[in-house]
């Protein structure tokens, strides 16, 4: 096992897939000459040349559309959005073109494309650059959505996403790129889409989450451990397709759950998960399922306010205590 950064893991995945399949190419702002805005594509231009690693103008709608077209005629583009925050205009191409083409063409036109980049907040990037966009991408049938939280998951899931015949929105995080973790040395390390992962086992309460919040969940679990509460942390990894079995299994085990996401509560990812749980695991619930999410405001710029707006381990612990009935709440 090697210990590498999330960024490195993505780089390895891209490299391996581009070597394996000539139709895979990378396109986006700064991906070639600059080695990538976050250096994810470092060295790829040198290795594969400018037909496989393509710099674009600042025009997400434009190059997303280019990518969709390329995918429709048989190539396998990886479209990088410097952040998904910049890609709201491109959403039209993702949803109306990529997501729906297989259905509308009666199965004749597939779109094996990957849209990747950071989602959600970093530090003090403020309102327009801190948006967690998962709900927009996961809502329409036809797009798969993947949110790896660790280097191993990033590598395995990116390789699977590139090989997948459907459009995949692969969501990373600026704050995750430097994160180090162990990645198996397998020659071809692929993690199937649609499989969640128990990042921490426990029997007292389930903290279900996705993306960078997995690390906040683990922190909260450590705090709870000091009081003898064993929290289970379930990392969904895939928002669509969703590993429903894993969700139900953990809730049946602990009888109480909380959903943690970095985005807003109103029709956030948690809304769907909670609905699923109450529908399919009602008789196993000893308490309502609570959600921890960003405060219902556009992300503030000021450091202290941003801290206050973001979900924290303390708030996760508090929610867990409430579903455990520990505070007389």
């Amino acid at each position, binding site marked *: 096992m090697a210990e590498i950064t999330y960024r490195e893991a993505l780089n390895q995945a891209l490299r391996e897939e581009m070597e394996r399949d000539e139709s895979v190419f990378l396109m986006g702002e700064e991906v070639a000459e600059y080695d990538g805005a976050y250096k994810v594509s470092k060295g790829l231009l040198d290795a594969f040349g400018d037909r496989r690693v393509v710099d674009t103008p600042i025009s997400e709608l434009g190059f997303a559309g280019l990518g969709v077209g390329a995918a429709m005629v048989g190539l396998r583009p990886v479209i990088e959005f410097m952040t998904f925050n910049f890609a709201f205009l491109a959403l039209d191409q993702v949803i109306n073109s990529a997501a729906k083409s297989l259905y509308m063409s009666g199965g004749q036109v597939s779109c094996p494309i990957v849209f990747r980049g950071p989602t959600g907040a970093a530090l003090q990037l403020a309102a327009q650059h801190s948006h967690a966009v998962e709900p927009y991408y996961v809502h329409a049938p036809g797009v798969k959505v993947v949110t790896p939280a660790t280097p191993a998951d990033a590598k395995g899931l990116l390789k699977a996403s590139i090989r997948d015949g459907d459009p995949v929105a692969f969501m990373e995080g600026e704050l995750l790129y430097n994160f180090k973790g162990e990645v198996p040395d397998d020659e071809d390390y692929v993690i199937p889409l649609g499989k969640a992962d128990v990042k921490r086992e426990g029997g007292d309460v389930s903290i279900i989450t996705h993306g960078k919040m997995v690390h906040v969940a683990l922190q909260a679990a450590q705090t709870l451990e000091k009081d003898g509460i064993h929290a289970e942390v379930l990392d969904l990894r895939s928002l669509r397709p969703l590993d429903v079995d894993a969700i139900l299994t953990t809730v049946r085990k602990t009888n109480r759950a909380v959903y943690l996401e970095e985005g807003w509560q109103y029709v956030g990812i948690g809304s769907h998960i909670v609905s699923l749980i109450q529908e399919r695991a009602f*008789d196993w*619930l000893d308490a309502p399922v609570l959600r921890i999410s960003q405060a219902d405001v556009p992300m503030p710029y000021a450091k202290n306010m941003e801290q206050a707006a973001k979900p924290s381990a303390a708030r996760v612990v508090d929610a867990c205590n409430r579903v455990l009935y520990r505070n*007389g709440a």
Partner: protein
Amino acid sequence: MATKVHMEALSPTMEEGQVVKWYKAEGDEISSGDVLADIETDKATMELTARGEGTLLKVLVEEGGTAPVGQVIAVIGEEGEDISELVEGAGEAPKPDEPAPQATVEGAREKQAAEATAEEAPAGEAVAAAAEAPAGREGAAEGEAPGAPGTPAEGVDGGRIKASPLARRLADEAGLDLASIEGSGPGGRVVKRDVEEARRAPRPEAPAAAAAGAPAGAPAEEGWRAAPVQVPEEEYEDVGISQMRKTIARRLVESIGPVPHFFLTVEVDMGRVMEARKRVNALLEARGQKVSVNDFVLKATAAALRQHPEVNAHWHTDHIRRYHAVHVGVAVAVDEGLITPVIRNADRKGMVQISAELRELAGRARERKLKPEEYTGATFSVSNLGMFGIQEFTAVINPPEGGILAVGKVEEIAVVVEGEVVARPRMKVTMSCDHRVIDGATGARFLQTLQTMLEEPAAVLL
């Protein structure tokens, strides 16, 4: 937006609280964090602090009144605010001397009266009176759900019972009536732990059967019960029951009933302990400290428990929990009754520390100022009545503990040692064992170890 002030669970075992004193009156301004009242719980008197801000609009439970955990006892809000919705249904708590579950008692009383009068109309007044008395007793028995001096009616909201889906299913599977289980969740919601506790407690089969049988029973029997002997008032006085005494009563019944006690006694020669104590205290004099015989006993007990995890164990219905840590509960007499502060990790503490801790905890216990974490969590308990001259006695186990040690006084008695009659200081210890956890031989082996530790104090050092 008005804030409801609830009777909060101020200790983990608290089921109801009595308002001792209100510090704020209706009309007073309240800030978050203000002390609203002193509440007497099962173990100590604790402060109830305000969680909201505004004006104290209504006090629903007066001084002296009790309320089960979760019940609304006051409302804070803006002056002039309409709080009729919040006040409705919150109501007065049942007075301590009335049978608590009003809903069930009313039902039982009406049923009894209806059936009795229907069957025995000619018998007239005697029967009507008969319907009252047994109903009171049986209604109380029916309503007195396992381990619940509080109100099952608490979780009932206009006939609907609040319970988590899981609790409902578990109760159903266990054949328990959800209405008879007291809920510890918000608003009196019955949750998993309540159902589990109810499953462990004894079911009131007998009283329920008796209640069912009574209406069909002979009116003559009821007539006899209806006329209690009149005791002249000057011969007695009724003393109110404090929260602590209520708890003691309930806990003891819960213990003696379901816990199969048996008792093992051993007489320990305390000669060496007495000598050791003299020597140790001589050393400690310079520090202004000293240790007592009881400190030796506690230390030896802790050491013995360490070696016998099968005795340092708790009964948990479907499994036995054997503790590696040794936390000894020491019974302390207080004005109202008794309480067992816990010496945590007693096997890892020296006698001086045990002595100091016990003194400190006992002192605060007498002032009713112990914190819940200080009187819960014992793995085994010890009770010493030696200072009252008691030679030997049997103590009642604190469930779910597996045993308790009752220590008598050290006294010089005549014993036979190597064929000669000599005077030796001897002490009797009697261990009460829960036969489900500890069998005769197991308990005996533990006592042998304890006896060795006391007859050869150096063994504790090993």
